[in-house]
């Protein structure tokens, strides 16, 4: 990033960030300025540091060096600007709680310590459930939901956060086609409302169709920019280098992409 970044209009500005687990760096020297109102895909092989990058943005893992600014301010002052969809496997789905109460957690940041969510919070949570098509499942125990429904509940919780920026860790992993469609519709709708989204994604076939901006990552940023500029065979080679199956898949995806143009 040689050009100057106007921080006040940049939702996420990462500068020279390195993240290490037990002193072993998993993400090196990340420089990234995510433009506002874009649906941004984050792709890369397993262990490339995709989730780590998202967690580092939210201070969930410590940074070895560098900083992240959210609209020009540190994350600790901009918590409420960010909604989060963690990986589905990150929680215990046998926990005794129903779907609506999970969604209501999205309001906790607005409610503040000790105070209880009020009627308006409850209505917002129900609205969020409705947006993901889960109105009838609000009082269902979460262990009685299908994988796709659980993912929708997580998305609804992020919507209830009513944020400017959404960070999503593999929202499409292991969901049925109807849920994938429903989720992508919601993401498009969020984009239309000028929200910025950073979405960790696995399926290279849909990259081109879903994301207008793309970050290719493998322990460092390989490329970042408009999808049409950076989603190239060369960049995919650099990102997935050495992984044959993924490479052929990538080549196929690119061929597909070029036919589409």
């Amino acid at each position, binding site marked *: 990033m040689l050009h100057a970044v106007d921080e006040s209009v940049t939702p996420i500005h990462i500068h020279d960030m390195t993240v290490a687990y*037990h002193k072993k760096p998993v993400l090196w020297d990340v420089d990234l300025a995510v433009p506002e109102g874009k649906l941004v895909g984050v792709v890369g092989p397993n262990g490339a540091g995709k989730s780590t990058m998202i*967690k580092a943005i*939210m*201070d*969930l893992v410590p940074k070895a060096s560098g900083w992240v600014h959210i609209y020009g301010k540190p994350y600790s002052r901009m*918590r409420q600007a*960010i909604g*989060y969809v*963690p990986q589905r496997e*990150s*929680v*215990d789905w046998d*926990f*005794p*709680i*129903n779907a609506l*109460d*999970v969604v209501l*957690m*999205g309001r*906790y*940041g607005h*409610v*503040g*310590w*000790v105070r*209880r*969510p009020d009627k308006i919070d409850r209505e917002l949570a129900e609205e969020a459930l409705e947006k993901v098509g889960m109105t009838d499942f609000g009082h269902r*125990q979460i*262990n009685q939901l299908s994988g796709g429904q659980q993912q929708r509940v997580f998305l609804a*919780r992020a919507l209830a*956060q009513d944020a400017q920026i959404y960070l999503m860790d593999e929202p499409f992993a292991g969901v049925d086609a109807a849920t994938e469609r429903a989720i992508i519709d919601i993401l498009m709708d969020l984009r239309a409302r000028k929200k910025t989204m950073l979405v960790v994604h696995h399926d290279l076939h849909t990259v081109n169709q879903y994301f207008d901006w793309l970050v290719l990552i493998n322990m460092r940023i390989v490329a970042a920019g408009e999808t049409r500029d950076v989603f190239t065979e060369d960049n995919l080679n650099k990102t997935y280098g050495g992984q044959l199956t993924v490479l052929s898949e990538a080549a196929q995806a690119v061929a597909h992409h070029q036919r589409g143009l």
Partner: protein
Amino acid sequence: MSEFWGPFWIVLAGALAGASCGLLGAYLVLRKMSLLGDALSHAVLPGIVIAFLLSGSRDVIPMFIGAAICGVIATVLIETFHRRWRVQEDSSIGIAFTALFALGVVLITAFAGQVDLDQECVLYGEIAYTPWDRLFWGEWDLGPRPIWILGTVFALNLAFVLVFYKELLIASFDAEMALSVGVSAALVHYMLMGAVSVTTVAAFESVGAILVVAMLIVPGASAYLWSDRLKVILTLSALMGVISAIAGYFLAGVWNSSIAGAMVVVMGVLFALSLIFAPHYGVLGRFVRQVRLSLKVARDHVLLKLLRERESQRVSALSWGDLVDTAARWVSGIAIRSLMWQGLITRANGHFSLGEQGVVHATRLLRNHRLWESYLNQIGLPPDHVHDPADALEHFTDDRLREEIRAALPDIATDPQGKRIPDG
């Protein structure tokens, strides 16, 4: 001590200890940290002894402070071993609490002259002395000291759970989400562990270091089997602590045994009962559901068999021997009898045939079966592979699902084997 007040104070002490432990214990079980409760109840010992040596009295305030500090130290040690030095979590817990407990034991014995804590009391508690251990305000007798202590601790725990309900909930369910909305999961964790430490000390004098572990874990684990709602689990867990105290007291009278021990035995019995009778997660409930399911499947198979025979126009009635499923004779027999009893099938001259309502039921099942076969075929399964999965799915297809499958298929009259899909 009167005949009423003596037992009353003992039962109340047990009930307050049980309810306090039950309330926090539910969270320990929920957070899969039962072992941590065990650890803390032992690890607080050096804190108590040091507080005792420094203050020179059995005043509870210094003891609570000593215990809370020691509890938090134990928690920090466990976290540090595990996260920073990468010792396995269960080993970290095991090392931290045995080391601290041993330190406590060494301190007690080394300063035996100055420490008026006897080991029996530490391990087993002295709940029977509750009515005689009085609290005085100058000349005023305020009542039994343990009741004041346990009552205060119960009130504090209740307040803790009520005030921080939301924070405990999100930190227990999703620690990362909690952080991202500004609730420090670590802070919640330390608060909970501090509360467990203090509760342990309060319950200590009455029930001892070993039985307090049971009080922390058993009611929570039992309550967890009964419900899928946190508020119900918390209430039940505390309630089981109270019930155990009352029943345990009377049981101890009958057996002429340790009161605290009997209370915990009752907890064990409540757990066993929960394990058997809890509707959803209990063994009995699971067994009943399994039997009911097998029965439904067996009934469906009997109906289908009769309908298929009728359709093939070979015979419209089958003998018992033809109808019964030899692989599951017992369930199949009950299925046939229950269908007869309901009039869905009838028997004449030793042969069974479908009744009027039986035809309706069976036709619907056959429609399910053949729609599934067609659907599975459409999504790519070869025709000779679709029968078995359809056989499994046909029993669980309600009207809505049936129409959804129908809508997903082109307008067809027969299944992949060319058999007619009946209207239903």
